[in-house]
């Protein structure tokens, strides 16, 4: 694929052919890296250096990125700037986009003796350009690439597989339909090799002895069982090289002068950090009252098959008698709920307890509930309007019941009765 792309670009610059291509691949599969590589190789070829004009539409040095150039006018200004034609354009007013672009290319041609200068357009986040109005930038770029006035190559980078469906018909017809797919299709053995290569110091490192020691250490690490387990876990989660990079950087950041070589323990620690469950962490920090509310909601979800509820339901749920038939009955699944059952559950729980400590007023419980809303553990089904009251707004719980149980295990100082209540299901009622 590297050679394919290189060939393509060479043809444009040396032979004056126009072309277009799309590089498609999931996030982190190395599209930008590939392109940069190819461009470097290209620049090294002598013939090319003087001739090629690059317009990188994005941020990096610079590409045209869909992120930055949010509409075509901005994109055009950016192109003008990068081609350093601001002086030429001056104050001219252009009727249409196409004229503007044609003028730019004309200017290039005149500035460079007889032959016209090949221009390479690189568009990063190509899918974002597709959402511009009328896709006029794309249309014009592809149009020029087909009409063989100036040798122009357009390369787009995107992560969407269905990018061709998004193009308009007239744009699609002008596109050469050349696509280069990049997939992370390596297996675990190669993954380990990549790991070793990433971690090793290059040969040009100034301190030779240290580099040698380091690389030996890396070799040891790659054979260590625990390290392999860590890598296997990451590999099964995502083949993306970026996550590997993140993990390695985290492990290497623990290296100091006292601790000069990364060890397996570092990697394990990094992996643990990387893969900690964020929701569980948040649940860990809730107060006991909030935990009780969450457990009440969990019970409601179990009994009512995941229907939305509102605050009032939760509150009452804790004060009704244990042997309440209502909650035992399962309702049909298409009946929407509001929150009173959650509160009902909560009150049920409270009545069971003789503890006066748990006897909270409703507004206090409401404040705890609003805290949960703020943390987005509970989300309202629709935007709160002026009509509905806060207590009766339908909500959904965004936590899974297994997540809740796991979080309860590690919850510090959890009162045992709360734990028991959580574990009890209502099936025996």
């Amino acid at each position, binding site marked *: 694929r590297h050679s394919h792309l290189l060939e393509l670009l060479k043809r444009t610059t040396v032979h004056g052919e126009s072309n277009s291509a799309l590089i498609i691949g999931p996030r982190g599969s190395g599209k930008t890296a590939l392109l940069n590589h190819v461009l470097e190789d290209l620049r090294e070829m002598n013939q090319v250096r003087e001739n090629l004009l690059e317009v990188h539409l994005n941020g990096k040095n610079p590409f045209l990125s869909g*992120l930055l150039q949010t509409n075509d006018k901005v994109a055009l200004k950016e192109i003008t700037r990068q081609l350093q034609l601001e002086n030429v354009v001056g104050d001219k007013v252009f009727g249409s986009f196409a004229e503007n672009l044609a003028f730019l290319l004309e200017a290039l041609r005149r500035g460079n003796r007889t032959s016209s200068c090949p221009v390479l357009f690189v568009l990063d986040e190509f899918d974002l350009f597709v959402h511009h109005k009328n896709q006029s930038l794309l249309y014009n770029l592809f149009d020029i690439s087909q009409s063989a006035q100036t040798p122009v190559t357009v390369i787009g980078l995107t992560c*969407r597989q269905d990018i061709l469906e998004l193009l308009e018909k007239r744009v699609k017809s002008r596109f050469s339909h050349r696509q280069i797919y990049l997939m992370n299709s390596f297996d675990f053995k190669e993954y380990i090799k990549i790991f070793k290569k990433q971690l090793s110091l290059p040969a040009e490192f100034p301190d030779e002895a240290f580099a040698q020691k380091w690389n030996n250490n890396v070799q040891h690490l790659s054979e260590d069982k625990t390290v392999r387990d860590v890598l296997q876990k990451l590999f099964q989660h995502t083949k993306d090289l970026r996550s590997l990079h993140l993990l390695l950087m985290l492990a290497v950041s623990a290296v100091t002068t006292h601790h000069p070589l990364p060890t397996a323990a570092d990697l394990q620690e990094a992996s643990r950090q990387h893969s900690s469950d964020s929701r569980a962490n948040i649940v860990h920090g809730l107060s006991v009252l909030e935990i009780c509310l969450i457990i009440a909601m969990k019970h409601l979800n179990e009994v009512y098959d995941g229907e939305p509820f509102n605050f009032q339901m939760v509150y009452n749920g804790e004060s009704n008698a244990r042997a309440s038939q209502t909650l035992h009955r399962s309702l049909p699944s298409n009946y929407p709920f509001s929150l009173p059952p959650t509160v009902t559950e909560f009150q049920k729980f409270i009545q069971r307890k003789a503890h006066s400590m748990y006897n909270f007023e409703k507004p206090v419980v409401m404040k705890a509930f609003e805290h949960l809303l703020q943390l987005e553990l509970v989300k309202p089904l629709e935007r709160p309007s002026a009509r509905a009251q806060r207590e*009766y707004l339908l909500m959904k719980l965004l936590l899974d019941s297994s997540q809740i149980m796991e979080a309860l295990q590690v919850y510090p100082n959890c009162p045992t009765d709360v734990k028991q209540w959580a574990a009890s299901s209502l099936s025996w009622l």
Partner: protein
Amino acid sequence: MPNLAHPAYPSAELLHLESLVPCRESQVSMLLSIFGERQHFSFPSIFIYGHTSSGKTYVMQTLLTTLQLPHVFVNCVEHFTSRLLLEEILIQLQSCSSGTEQTSPVHCDTLNDFVRLFKQTLASQELQDQTVYIVLDRAEQLREMEANILPAFLRLQELTDRNVTVILLSEIVWELFRPSIGCFEPFTMYFPDYSIGHLQKILSQNHPPEYSADFYAAYINILLGVFYMVCRDLKELRHLAALNFSKYCEPVVRGEANERDTRKLWKNIEPHLKKAMQTVYLREISSSQWERLQRDGGEPGQLKGLSAHTHMELPYYSKFLLIAAYLASYNPVRTDKRFFLKHHGKIRKTNFMKKHEKTSNHLLGPKPFPLDRLLAILYSIVDNRVAPTANIFSQVLMNLVLMYCLPHLLEMESRQPQMQTFTL
């Protein structure tokens, strides 16, 4: 707790830093190891999440200012549009390394301009390749801005090709941030919540100098015992501690007990704290009112929160109107015929009703009803014949407006009638 040690920074500064951030040493040391030395490239973006008042903003600010790393600190709630945000970053960047406040006005509309201006500004500062940190607080607001802001900030290092790291602080977990087409994943870091021991340690640091540390520690113990179940928010607890301390010291001041008489002090303060939970904690009364109450020695029973104004004498028809509104909002329409007409037929229970009998309507909340229905029910409730005079209508209007505008004050049995908006 291990001392913070890092070769790049002088140890005196690190010691000072450690004293400023109790109970957060491990997070700070992790951050230091990620930042590395001043010129090192770090992660392009770091996402820090944790509970309310778990110290994220405070630690970041203290860390960056104590070690004097070049940084820009922006709150996304304060600068809630993209233009405000970008301009603020550029303005702060201008005064970054020079330390003086010479700022020239900056006009920046889009991210494209931002990147260009950013590179220009950075070049004009003599930063010698040090990492610049851009800290965005309350980052969940970034989701509400234009769709390209968040992904662009995550990739800022790549887009500008400079040594910059973007740090996002938020309470909400990363999974809820991720845009649907994916983005550059930041390094996520969790600031764990404070345990009860930590809370005690931090709160005890604020003791006023007149009393001993032990005395204050005992007070904090009592306070935590009452409030820990409900709330673990450090700011709230600190507020409560400051407000109630004078009441706690009263017996000592009056000479009835000395500092060690824990039982007496507890008996004095406990009902007070319980009352505080219902009022100041809920912000029903302001803290100045609370303090005034404490000074005057009023009984806790005299406290009137906002929701305590429940008894209002309403005119004759208004009372009936209120009852009619209550009935209208909680009874389903088909039962009206049965209740309010003299001769009604039998109501057959349909299948639908059988299924949904048990769910009390009280749980589902009040429902909207049209004005005619309200009037119809009113006419059938009131004993004598109600003439539809202007008097009635004006009372209706005035009372409706009253009731509609002030539903919180009329919180009788926690029902609030809802009415459809009608044009007059």
